């Protein structure tokens, strides 16, 4: 069985990703682990190679040709990112290592300078550890409270629980995912932002998963903070983004001290640079940031309408196919969900599934997916997870289904 995908030639897309031609254990690679990290298109690889071969020096400090050219290329990506997520200003884009660092930056600076002991931070039950642990650390160091918003069995935000968590007016920050890396559920971020703002709280959105699959407009959402990683967006590792409203960045102290982030330095004291540079201490990931720029160009060239339509068809096909396999249980069934599907199989442990699929050239993730508390909430210890990118095909889903049927026979 295969599905018809409209106005989107996945075969042409796949040609752009050299790694997809690789074989694993003598079998064609079926890569279903894009939610962990996506593969890279030729355009990203070439852009990074070009920097290293033809146009490289440190940024923001050299008075020579190469440094100026590299600084221009690096700063052009800040404009590109601002445009990509529709930020009001390029000064609202802070480059980090990844979304984890973006969230930690907020916890260490905004969390300690603006949030007061006794204020509460609210997160949901389906957060990645990256959007849970920094708030636990803030709680232990600074005396803020950490509250957990329940999710329904379907894997959606429980609005009754949300109301309860906010009822006493102590919550000053809602830190929440836009798309669960385990359940694939999207959260209604516009509604959540409005809800938080009406109650005097700010909202931080972990957009790591969502930004890969749909157009994000931080102004339309009215996000206060928005974090994502480059490597899930078909870009390189080592570069991430923190978007924050300008007035918030202005009131935040530096995260790390060093070069780049200062206005002036004496032996006694230093004055700090304006945002976003205040938050970018040290030589940044120059090559990777330029690679991220190429990834954004690539994604925008294809367009989120086409990507989303393709992935929607794939997800529907996958949900229908996998739920027909005896013994397979899919976690969560949110109304609004994307191409991340976690499942368990009767009798077969997630790690057995992953190893046996790997023998067939199929890469899935197995374990707790950096969301250990969510595993407990859903009543499992680990799951296998198949996740899709723009290059995933219906045939690959069928290969997964065939693989699972073989495993079922082994474990019956």
């Amino acid at each position, binding site marked *: 069985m295969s599905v018809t995908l409209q106005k989107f030639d996945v075969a042409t897309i796949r040609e752009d990703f050299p790694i997809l031609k690789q074989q694993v254990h003598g079998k064609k690679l079926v890569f279903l682990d894009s939610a962990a990290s996506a593969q890279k298109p030729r355009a990203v690889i070439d852009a990074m190679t070009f920097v290293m071969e033809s146009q490289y020096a440190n940024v923001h400090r050299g008075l020579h040709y190469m440094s100026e050219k590299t600084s221009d290329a690096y700063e052009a990506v800040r404009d590109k990112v601002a445009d990509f997520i529709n930020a009001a200003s390029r000064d609202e884009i802070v480059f980090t290592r990844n979304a984890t660092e973006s969230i930690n930056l907020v916890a260490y600076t905004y969390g300690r300078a603006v949030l007061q002991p006794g204020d509460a931070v609210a997160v949901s039950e389906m957060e990645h550890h990256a959007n849970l642990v920094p708030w636990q650390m803030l709680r232990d160091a600074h005396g803020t409270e950490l509250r957990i918003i329940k999710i329904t069995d379907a894997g959606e935000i429980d609005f009754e629980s949300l109301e309860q968590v906010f009822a006493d007016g102590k919550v000053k920050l809602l830190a929440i995912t836009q798309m669960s890396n385990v359940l694939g559920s999207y959260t209604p971020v516009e509604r959540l932002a409005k809800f938080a703002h009406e109650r005097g709280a700010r909202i931080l959105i972990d957009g790591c998963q969502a930004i890969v699959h749909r157009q994000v407009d931080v102004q339309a959402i009215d996000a206060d903070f928005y974090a994502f990683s480059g490597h899930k967006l078909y870009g390189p590792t080592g570069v991430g983004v923190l978007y924050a409203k300008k007035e918030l960045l202005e009131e935040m102290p530096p995260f790390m001290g060093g070069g780049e982030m200062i206005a002036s330095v004496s032996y006694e004291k230093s004055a700090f640079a304006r945002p976003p540079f205040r938050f970018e201490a040290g030589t940044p990931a120059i090559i990777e940031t330029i690679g991220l720029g190429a990834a954004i160009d690539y994604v925008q060239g294809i367009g989120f309408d086409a990507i989303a339509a393709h992935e929607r068809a794939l997800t529907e096909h996958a949900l229908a196919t996998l739920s027909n396999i005896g013994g397979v249980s899919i976690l969560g069934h949110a109304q609004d969900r994307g191409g991340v599907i976690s499942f368990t199989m009767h009798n077969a442990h*997630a790690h057995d599934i992953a190893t046996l699929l790997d023998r067939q050239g199929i890469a899935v993730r197995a374990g707790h997916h950096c969301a250990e508390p969510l595993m407990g909430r859903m009543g499992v210890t680990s799951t296998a997870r198949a996740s899709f990118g723009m290059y995933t095909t219906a045939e690959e889903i069928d290969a997964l289904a065939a693989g699972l049927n073989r495993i079922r026979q082994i474990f019956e």
Partner: protein
Amino acid sequence: MSHPYQALIMERHKHPLHAGRPAQFDAQGQVANLICGDKVRVYVTRAGMDVHYEAEGCAIVNASADLMADAVAGKTPAQVEQISRDFETLVTSGHENPALGELNALAGIAEFSSRIRCATLPWSALAEALHHV
């Protein structure tokens, strides 16, 4: 190299011979794999080195525990230590060792470095139990 899910492994996973907590034992040891949450608890009866276990784990953990109980039955603690070392070499190198008998069924796991810990987990629990004997 043997397939990590060959018949003997699946047989011991589905129909273990030594699973379950015995009514009487001299010592127990428990070890968990922090990466996946798998757990093994091993019960040792000193006389005759009689080993039983309870496992919450994958097929490799379960089969490895069951084959371990066979392999160490009647051995001295020093002999168990030697077999344990040889077993570790087996699952990390993939080279079969005639002295290890049916344990050689797990040699294939060497190809999957992230799964080697599944095979050695019961042995760690046994070492823990013997430490208490």
